[in-house]
């Protein structure tokens, strides 16, 4: 029963805030934040109480004839990890957001959407059967749409929200089709029965590839990642919660939840791994030249998600989950820190306009440093352990090419994160910026500790996961650890070398020489423009064309033809009756002659 309560609490908070926003405007602004945070915090406590127990809760939902679709929530080992991350990081972000959004007029609406999001995310993670998971899946998509276009006055942000929703919908169609294939094959959509059902390899392959396509939509992989960078139009807490910690990992959750099916689809593994690897690499290249803090972090998220799918591709599901957890910590930390920087700089997001914030915002600087070290993969911090585990498994499973690609990406990650770090915090320029209040800094510190200690915590949970965790020779493991640590160090050194104040002329020369490359990277390899040109423009022509020809021309035309046909034939017939008496008599006579002729002829 607590599971239901855990899952529905955020929904209640959302409904409360929603009504409060629509019907009562006057009260104390911060209350909305408090209500949502409390709701999520109680969910967190419930989750930690129920952690790692197998609890199920079910309500009858749709039942027609033989087809039963109850609303089932199931908590088990895997989902409890995700629930803890969602509620834990979520609560921290809620506290942060209460302060961050304090002066915004639509704060109740904001927290209504945020709680709705947490509720749907919990439904997604706890969903016992695929349709319930799908409900959470689309609910989350809806909330990301509502939150991205939260400041809807500026139509750019509204368009970004719509783009995110539509791209997610494309993925969801894949999810739907995958579900139908599975239902047709094994008659039920419950995850338990699916994992134990014997399905023919082809149906499993088709279903898994469709579901994987859905994951690329939701977790921003190669074909459908274009929405995540634009999703930065939303407020920073939204980016932190949705586009860093929780929603984007739902794709990985789906794959790990159905890992039995995905294991069965052998040929899909290499596809998943390569898609993950290539996404990581491409996103990292783009992040190298971004000027907006949030864009850098967005592409870094896409890149880290690439790692996750790389891990899933090579079958290292525990490594993937471990990285999800650590990534949630340090990426949320980085986003929130960036948020407090933006807050301090009154909305300025271009990092070149900042610099030397070390002195102006010491606490943010300190927490950002911890986050930075974690994401670069420096040994004691969490990022190192999880990323190394993924690379290790990629290496041991024989995909050395992908391992190399992973290493290069790790180096690039270290490079662009350090670039961001130096340009915003170090340097002699001292821009004036006021440090954020403690309401925002406290969550930062908590997240900083988590991302620092995350590594140890990770080892504990990865060994308890029931998947096939076989012990590798530790000697090879140590060597690989050393290699990845050096790579990270190399990246950081290179960045320090490049972005030190005195190195300005060298950067200018490189800029001049590889100008075309940097503009290409700045425009994200012109992917958006290409899609627009290749896909959207012709589609718009088609819509217009279809309406004009089929609807207006063919069908209406045909009917108008019928109508005018009737009128025209009427006119023609009218001419036959001229009204001259003698002509009619003549016709009558001729008629009589013919009849007589016929009668007579008939007689003969």
């Amino acid at each position, binding site marked *: 029963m607590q599971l239901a309560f855990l899952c529905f609490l955020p929904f209640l908070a959302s409904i409360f805030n929603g009504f409060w926003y629509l019907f009562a405007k006057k009260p104390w602004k911060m209350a909305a934040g408090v209500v949502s945070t409390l709701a999520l915090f109680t969910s967190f406590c419930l989750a930690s109480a129920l952690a790692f127990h197998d609890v199920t809760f079910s309500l009858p939902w749709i039942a027609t004839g033989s087809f039963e679709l109850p609303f089932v929530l199931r908590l088990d080992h895997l989902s409890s990890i995700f629930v803890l991350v969602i509620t834990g990081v979520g609560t921290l972000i809620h506290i942060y957001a209460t302060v961050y959004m304090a002066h915004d007029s639509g704060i109740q609406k904001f927290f209504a959407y945020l709680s709705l999001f947490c509720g749907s995310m919990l439904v997604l993670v706890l969903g016992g059967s695929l349709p319930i998971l799908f409900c959470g899946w689309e609910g989350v998509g809806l909330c990301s749409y509502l939150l991205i276009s939260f400041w809807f006055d500026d139509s750019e942000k509204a368009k970004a929200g719509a783009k995110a929703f539509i791209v997610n919908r494309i993925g969801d169609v894949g999810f739907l089709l995958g579900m139908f294939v599975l239902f047709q094959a094994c008659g039920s959509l419950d995850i338990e029965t699916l994992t134990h059902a014997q399905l023919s390899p082809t149906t499993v392959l088709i279903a898994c590839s469709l579901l994987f396509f859905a994951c690329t939509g939701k977790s921003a992989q190669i074909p459908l990642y274009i929405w995540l960078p634009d999703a930065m139009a939303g407020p920073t807490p939204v980016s932190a919660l949705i586009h860093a910690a929780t929603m984007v990992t739902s794709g990985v959750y789906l794959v790990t939840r159905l890992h039995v099916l995905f294991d069965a689809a052998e040929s899909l593994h290499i596809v998943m791994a390569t898609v993950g690897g290539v996404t990581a690499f491409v996103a990292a290249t783009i992040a190298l030249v971004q000027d907006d803090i949030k864009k850098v972090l967005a592409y870094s998220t896409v890149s880290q998600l690439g790692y996750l799918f790389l891990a899933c591709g090579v079958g290292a599901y525990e490594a993937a989950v471990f990285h999800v957890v650590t990534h949630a910590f340090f990426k949320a930390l980085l986003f929130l820190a960036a948020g407090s920087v933006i807050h301090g700089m009154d909305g300025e997001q271009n990092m070149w306009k900042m610099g030397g914030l070390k002195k102006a915002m010491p606490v943010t600087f300190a927490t950002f440093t911890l986050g930075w070290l974690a994401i670069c993969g420096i040994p004691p911090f969490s990022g190192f352990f999880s990323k190394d585990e993924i690379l290790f498994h990629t290496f041991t499973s024989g995909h050395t090419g992908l391992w190399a690609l992973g290493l290069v990406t790790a180096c690039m990650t270290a490079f662009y994160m350090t670039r961001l770090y130096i340009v915003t915090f170090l340097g002699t320029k001292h821009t004036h910026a006021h440090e954020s209040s403690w309401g925002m800094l406290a969550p930062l510190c908590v997240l900083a500790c988590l991302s620092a200690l995350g590594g140890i915590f990770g080892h504990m949970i990865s060994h308890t996961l029931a998947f096939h965790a076989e012990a590798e020779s530790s000697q090879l493991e140590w060597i690989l650890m050393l290699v990845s640590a050096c790579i990270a160090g190399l990246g950081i050194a290179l960045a320090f070398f490049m972005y030190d104040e005195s190195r300005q002329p060298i950067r200018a020369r490189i800029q001049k020489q590889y100008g075309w490359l940097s503009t290409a990277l700045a425009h994200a390899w012109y992917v958006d423009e290409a899609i627009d040109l290749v896909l959207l423009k012709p589609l718009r022509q088609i819509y217009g064309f279809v309406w004009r020809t089929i609807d207006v021309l063919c069908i209406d035309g045909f009917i108008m033809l019928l109508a005018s046909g009737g009128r025209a034939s009427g006119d023609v017939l009218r001419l036959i009756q001229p*009204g*001259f*008496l*003698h002509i009619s*008599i003549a016709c009558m006579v001729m008629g009589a002659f013919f009849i007589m002729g016929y009668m007579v002829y008939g007689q003969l």
Partner: protein
Amino acid sequence: MVESFAAALFLIGLLGIVLRRTILVMLMSLELMLNAVNLTFVAFGQQQGLLTGQVYVFFTMTIAAAEAAIGLALVIALFRTFRSVDTHAVHGMRE
């Protein structure tokens, strides 16, 4: 014998209606045709030995009379509005 005469009368009446342009003459040829028909009635009645032919002639005669009355009244009314009895001039029937 009598029937061929009646046939001749009838056809002459027919020619009259078709060729002549004045409505009056057409009415008269109409009367001609009616008489021809009466004649054939009587003739065939005679051949069959029945008197019903003659009874029918009696009825056609009354109808012919009524028809002539109405026809002439029409002609007068027509004449008043169209100032002429020429069929070519009188062609208001279309609209």
